């Protein structure tokens, strides 16, 4: 975990609900101050520092602007352990995952481009729903397990989105 915390860097309170436009604007403002281009003729030490600060600013921005990464970051705040590769017991979602994957395979076999577009829209709806549910429970200690479950679902859908993009690329060949 970076010090200071990603939210503090952007002068924000830890929260899952973020105004992304505002985050982007704040990012550009902060980047202006620390980007190595500003230090082209500064001392080597300052250049080094600018490089490090820009890199951590970029890292913070990447984390905060992606809902699954942001969710994971929130849950890991306060030094809690959150191993990457753990399957939280979630049989319902396991079933759903298999379904998504089967559908994606069919779309691939049939090179069904309109089908892929529809699939992407459904994926987006599912992601929005997950985000809402997570926003409602992450800060409640009693619902910690549920929040973790939702976060892992978000991660899965994120991965699935990436796979859809790869599929589109393959079909473009």
């Amino acid at each position, binding site marked *: 975990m970076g010090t200071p915390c990603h939210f503090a860097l952007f002068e924000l309170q830890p929260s899952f609900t973020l105004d992304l436009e505002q985050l982007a604007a704040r990012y550009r403002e902060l980047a202006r101050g620390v*980007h190595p281009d500003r230090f082209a*003729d500064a001392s080597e030490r300052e250049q080094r520092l600018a490089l*490090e600060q820009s*890199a951590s600013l970029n890292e913070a921005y990447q984390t905060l602007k992606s809902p699954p990464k942001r969710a994971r970051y929130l849950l890991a705040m306060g030094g809690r352990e959150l191993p990457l590769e753990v399957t939280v017991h979630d049989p319902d979602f396991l079933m759903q995952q298999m379904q998504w994957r089967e559908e994606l395979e069919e779309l691939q076999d049939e090179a069904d481009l309109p089908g892929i577009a529809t699939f992407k829209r459904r994926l987006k709806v599912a992601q929005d729903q997950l985000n809402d549910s997570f926003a409602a429970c992450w800060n409640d200690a009693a619902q910690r397990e549920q929040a973790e479950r939702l976060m892992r679902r978000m991660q899965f859908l994120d991965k699935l989105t990436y796979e859809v993009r790869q599929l589109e690329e393959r079909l*473009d060949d």
Partner: protein
Amino acid sequence: MALLQIAEPGQSPQPHQRRLAVGIDLGTTNSLVAALRSGLSEPLPDADGQVILPSAVRYHADHVEVGQSAKLAAAGDPFNTVLSVKRLMGRGLADVKQLGEQLPYRFVGGESHMPFIDTVQGPKSPVEVSAEILKVLRLRAEASLGGELVGAVITVPAYFDEPQRQATKDAARLAGLNVLRLLNEPTAAAVAYGLDQNAEGVVAIYDLGGGTFDISILRLTRGVFEVLATGGDSALGGDDFDHAIAGWIIEQAGLSADLDPGTQRHLLQIACAAKEALTDTASVEVVYGDWRAALTREAFDALIEPMVARSLKACRRAVRDSNVELDEVQAVVMVGGSTRVPRVREAVAEMFGRQPLTEIDPDQVVAIGAAIQADTLAGNKRDGGELLLLDVIPLSLGLETMGGLMEKVIPRNTTIPVARAQDFTTYKDGQSAMMIHVLQGERELISDCRSLARFELRGIPAMVAGAAKIRVTFQVDADGLLDVSARELGSGVEASIQVKPSYGLTDGEIAKMLKDSFQYAGDDKVARVLREQQVDAQRLVEAVQAALEADGERLLDADERMVIDLQVQELTELMKGTDGYAIEQQTKRLSQVTDAFAARRLDSTVKAALAGRNLNEIGE
């Protein structure tokens, strides 16, 4: 090392004086240098008023010719004239062969895995050839701006990988330029366009040059140029159009495909002229010797269709990667001479659903943008607020993991600078070392990715498999260049490498080339270097003579003795002259032929020292 000081920025200027900095577009076909003059960025002309310098270098026995005259000589002197050298930058010999075209050069291997071109001046690396072009532009800039340059921004295709970037930076160093930044060509074009038009929002830059293709999607927000995604093909450009037409001529005229280099060059010149003519006419007559035929624009369009399609595919991918919808793209800017081809414009317009913009000269826009950035980086204040360019890495960076797979550590299109760490562990009990293999590319198998560097983390304390925690950190700077370090967290054992790819130049090669370049530089630094070389040579000769006197009789046979004596004599002769390179080479040679002698002497000294002692003492 004193030698490297030539790349240092000039003396500090007077407080009110503008610091001189330029933008250089080092192109495949043409190169330009631009600078800010009275608030306006413009390309700098040569003495004849020409701004475009053809990227052609011809080696003569005693001098180097760069530009238009060299380009015209290509067919007549193919082996000594290098065109489109950019296509060879950062490439290995094997890659060059894969470019799938007959290159009319004689290649020889070098100390690194670079392809060296054999010329009348000896083998020349692509880096050296590029440096010749940069040198001409540096001198032009210094002459027209009237002073020494603080530095330069050199543009590279956004899709250039790490070795290609490193090679470009090496070439600039070799040309005596202080590199303020390597800037991606489409980003430079976006700066020129964005400031010129006061544009905001999402913009696509379609950049088809002589040898490379780039597509970048940027978001422009009040002076901030944020690259959302970039893509392309570092081996696709107008040269390929020429090759396609040349292939058509060969086929139509019934020529043998196995042509001598001069004929190849001649055909390519005819092809290029036909291509250019087809921009304004529907059909052109192509003449080769007695053979003549009409090439219609339609036929030409069909010839280049596969290449146009490849560029569009890269566009679609970049749009997907940028997470914007196609209709959010508010402007498409055309960059590079090859975007004059009507079919290219038409295809781009179809894909983006809007007419591409061609207002700014596609040959000049990159250099103009680079000059604006150079001026900012040199510390000059800009009217109308500061610029900020947020660029990305074009290709994913990662590591080899078990089973020959590539594990991505930083995915493509991540904003730079970036630092990212990944933890690994040992897979054998007591494993004391780990090989770190750094890769670049999008494919799963490491054999499909570009190998950037390998290094070993040693001295991992003995532990059971899986207990060690090895953190590998990647750091990419604002030029897109990579540093990798590895550290075992328990013990703190560390290893790191600045990625100097196997297709770049070794530090030794650069140092040697820098020295070589002094032979032509004609200032007092040359004298200083020569003096150093003479001193080194003198030292070696004295040491060898002393050693010969002491142990020559005892440790050398007559033949060995003769070889050494000859080399000593040779070096002693050279030392009186002023050929620094020859002195250096001969110093090296003498040192080589005396290696075995030196080893024997050391050996006998050790034996003599040990003679009076017993084994127990030695063990201590």
